[in-house]
């Protein structure tokens, strides 16, 4: 039915004509239906379970206020995510700055360095860090043999190890948006500032930095949201002692089958991320950040 309706055919009854927008709607209908069935429906089930399991009410959400265990876990998650995001942004900014200002040949190699880790499984990368960071690992052995330290550093099995692993994973997600933004900055603005007597530092601070802020904010949102849901790296590099929200949810759902608590935390995560995006959309143009418009 859709094929004849898509082309104007005078012989058809009036009811089967579609306006221009109507036809576009028809084209996205399958995608929309898929979204509803495979995305909105399961999410609404999760939200529903968070207020109905094991009995109807907001008992599960009350745990956010009363359970010391959940509060501590949420604090750990927030602390690690915020620090990871900040470190990632600083490193990503430096890398992007160098990328934008280097020759095409150097850029190609640098991109390879940024992208290759992105294609390697997070599990493999966590174990690679384990080999490097452990007490008798490459880094500690090198430092000890050069005489810089005499007792091995605790680089792993704590939050330091978790953050090293997470920052490494997040760097491409920080670099790519910041680089995309910096690439679009008109270099003549900096040249103009310099021509008007600004020093290198002032030109950077007053012209380049403000112009690159949207990229930094976008990268920050992306990295922070990813960090909140991190599972593998904290579980492996944290020595079992760093409990973040994803692992906490997994334990509730799969092991002690307290689905109400698990879905409540998943819903909370969803609400927090939604809230963050809503607040940020008032400060910056989110659509522009993620490449649209």
């Amino acid at each position, binding site marked *: 039915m859709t094929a004849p309706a898509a082309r104007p055919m005078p012989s058809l009854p009036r009811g089967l004509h579609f306006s221009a927008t109507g036809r576009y709607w028809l084209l996205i209908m399958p995608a929309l239906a898929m979204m509803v069935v495979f995305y909105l429906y399961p999410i609404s089930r999760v939200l529903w379970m968070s207020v109905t399991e094991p009995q109807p009410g907001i008992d599960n959400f009350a745990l956010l206020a009363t359970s*010391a*265990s959940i509060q*501590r*876990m949420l604090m*750990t998650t927030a602390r690690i995510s915020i620090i990871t995001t900040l470190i990632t942004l600083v490193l990503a900014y430096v890398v992007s700055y160098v990328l934008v200002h280097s020759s095409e040949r150097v850029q190609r190699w640098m991109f390879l360095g940024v992208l290759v880790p992105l294609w390697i499984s997070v599990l493999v990368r966590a174990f690679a860090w*384990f080999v490097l960071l*452990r*007490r*008798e690992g490459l880094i500690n052995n090198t430092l000890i043999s050069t005489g810089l330290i005499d007792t091995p550093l605790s680089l792993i*099995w704590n939050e330091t190890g978790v953050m090293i692993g997470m920052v490494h994973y997040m760097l491409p997600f920080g670099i790519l948006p910041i680089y995309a933004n910096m690439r679009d900055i008109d270099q003549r603005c900096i040249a103009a500032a310099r021509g008007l007597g600004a020093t290198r530092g002032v030109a950077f601070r007053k012209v380049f930095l403000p112009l690159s802020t949207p990229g930094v904010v976008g990268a920050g949102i992306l990295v922070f949201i990813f960090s909140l849901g991190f599972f593998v790296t904290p*579980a*492996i590099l944290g*020595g*079992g*002692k*760093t*409990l973040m929200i994803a692992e*906490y949810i997994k*334990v509730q*759902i*799969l*092991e*002690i*089958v*307290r*689905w109400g608590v698990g879905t409540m935390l998943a819903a909370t995560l969803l609400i927090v991320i939604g809230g963050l995006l809503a607040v940020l959309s008032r400060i910056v143009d989110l659509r522009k950040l993620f490449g649209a418009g």
Partner: protein
Amino acid sequence: MTKHNAISALSRRNLLKAGAGLITAPAVLGSASAFAQARKEVVLVNYGGAAMKAFDEAYVQPFAAQGGRIVLDGSGPLNGKILTMVQSRNVTWDICDGGITTLAELGPRNALEKIDYSIVDKTKVPAEFAYENGVVNYMFSSVLAWDTAKVKETPTLADFFDLKKYPGRRMMRKDSQAMLELCLLADGVPLDKLYPLDTRRAFAKLATIKKEVLYWNSGAESQSLMRDGECVMGLLWHTRANILKGETNNRIAFTFKDGLLQPGLWVVPKGNPAGAEAFRAIASMQQPEGQVKLLAAMGNGPSNPAAQALVPAAQRAMNPADPANAAVQAKINAAWYIENHSKTFQAYLDFISS
């Protein structure tokens, strides 16, 4: 005309044949499916890996020789997955490789079939490990292992908690089950007086070494932490300790003394597709021969007491259910776990992550 008649007669005869075929086909198919229903296929789920080949030789082939069919699925029967199947009334598993915590979480939620002890033979298992919703399939132990390069004499469980005598990192499982028991044994609680667990006392004991403990999630992780020398001592499954002992040429040693003997359980999800055939498969797996094969392949201790006599002398030392080894270990108490698993596990996670 005659030719035309012949053709039409022929085609009519063919048509009749075809018609007859159509009528009889469902009857034939019906009887075939009725035959298949007599011996349904049993889907057995375990955690994969080396267990797939070992289970095939020990269990699948002997059952096939009796005319039954077991299909192995190595995707891991976690509690949450079993419950999802049962609650959505879309059960595709018949027998799951579970443990005491499966009983504790799924039994009260009415997600497990009662074991049909008219088919499964209770006399072929130790009485204390035959439960209403699950029956022992093999024995395993949580044991103390140590790195002989760093710990010269054989340590006791109390030494595990003695950082002065043996400095260095320790390793425990990220699960309260067995770990709290071993804390209490180290603190001087006798083997047969463990239950009900004094969890406060266990956590107090754990607190004395908390800073030096790493926690493993998967068996592979426990092996890697000991193999790479990250920990001087560790509490882990005897099966993994046994593999470590072999691959490190005895650098890693372990003892059953003051270990905790635990049953691996067969459980049957409620409304399983094969019905009672699942219990016939379980009964078949009670034969001692297969269980001894499993011990040789993976170190899983036979659950049938009659199998102990068939174990070759060389394998007795690694058999947790061997009478000599069982005598120096505590035995887990399912009733206590059914009451307390959820909150104890949660408390343990809170304790180690705080």
